[in-house]
């Protein structure tokens, strides 16, 4: 059960109506709509931060799914397991990013491993990030790409805590898909 009322097309404030005109916009929007002045700015940040960007959707889903797993957010793990499959990650890769199997077996490319190291250092630890993690990442990726992924990790951590704190429910469609894929 969500901890807050999830607004719908009838109860959504005027300035949030646009997000409800195409049907149910999902629980993140439905919860954010209760503070309408934050809805536009939050989505304006999260949308591009989680979108394809310069590094592309595969790397973005590494960042989102891995961060969500490290933060223990079941809502985001569920949602981005399906998105990850949609953009072409294998079930094996998804399981590894979710922390269920060894990363080394799923990811063989040095560049991808370096990126996952950067993501893990950002989302899975506190305090300073060791120089060798940064150096390894920079050996394979441009500065702007690592900046972009840092923004994605930050936006994902916001969503993780938002969804977890408010106990947002995973949609039945996503749960069905996860069951069908053997990834529930």
């Amino acid at each position: 059960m969500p901890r807050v009322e999830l607004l719908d097309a009838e109860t959504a404030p005027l300035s949030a109506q646009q997000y409800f005109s195409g049907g149910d916009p999902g629980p993140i929007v439905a919860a954010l709509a209760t503070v309408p002045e934050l809805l536009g700015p939050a989505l304006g940040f999260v949308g591009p931060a989680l979108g394809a960007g310069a590094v592309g959707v595969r790397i973005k889903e590494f960042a989102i799914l891995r961060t969500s797993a490290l933060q223990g957010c079941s809502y985001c793990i569920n949602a981005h397991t399906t998105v990850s499959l949609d953009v072409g990650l294998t079930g094996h890769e998804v399981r590894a990013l979710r922390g269920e199997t060894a990363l080394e077996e799923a990811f063989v490319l040095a560049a991808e491993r370096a990126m996952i190291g950067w993501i893990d250092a950002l989302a899975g630890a506190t305090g300073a990030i060791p120089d060798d993690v940064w150096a390894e990442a920079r050996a394979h990726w441009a500065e702007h790409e690592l900046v972009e992924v840092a923004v994605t990790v930050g936006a994902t951590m916001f969503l993780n805590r938002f969804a977890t704190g408010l106990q947002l429910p995973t949609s039945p469609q996503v749960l069905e898909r996860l069951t069908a894929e053997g990834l529930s």
Partner: protein
Amino acid sequence: MTAAQGPIADAVRDGTLPGRVWLYSNYHCNLACSYCLTESSPRSERRELTAAQMIAVAEQAKELGFTALGITGGEPFLLPWLPEAVLEMVQHLPLVLLNNGTLFVGERLERAAKLAHPGIALQISLDSHLPDINDMARGPDNFSKVVESVPRLLERGVQVRIATTTAGPLDSPALDPLKALVASWGVPADDHIVRPIVRRGRADERGLGVQAIARDIPSELCITADGAFWGSFGPTVRNGRLDTDLLLTRTILPLAVPANALLAAIGGMPQGADAALGIR
């Protein structure tokens, strides 16, 4: 004193934005009228603004370029600090104070008498010249309390307006005896407001009044303890739940935040689009 500058002041000056800012001082009430928009009653959640918030709204409203204030509830006179706060607010802008006119006896009357000020008008509800009809919607003895209160306030130099909420046509001849009663107190015809029941809040639960959507409701900025709304008919309560369809922002201060949100929301709506149903 230089005129206020900025987009809000410009919008008020050119008529895009109404000049009045409403404040819901509180939601609880000593009455429980059948058509109440806020389901107010003695047991209602109070949802009070503080005196400091109300004074800050008045001050910032003036700075932004608004031209008037309105206070409503609930019954504002249940708040013991209200008259003093209102006297501070009127230092910034003139205001109308809506109330049910049933609490003006003893000490409360003398406190209300302090509001004899050219910038303050008390708007008191009275729905019929027939006590039974009036009291059917507004509760036992409401008529007699109001007709006793109005002359008492006027004697003390307090400006009084009368508001009549009706289920019938706004220009019905059936209202003529009530208009005559109001005129007999010396209240000018322009200060007797006749308005329809709006189908929100308790009126909606009981199927009373006219259906209203945003463009039917005057786009006045309305500040409550729960946030800022489009219009004084925005922050209604239905089955104990605060309606959020006309919510603008949860932020109320600085007032520029909700004021700019309202300005953005009315963008594209034709001027005067809210006049059709006579809601005011």
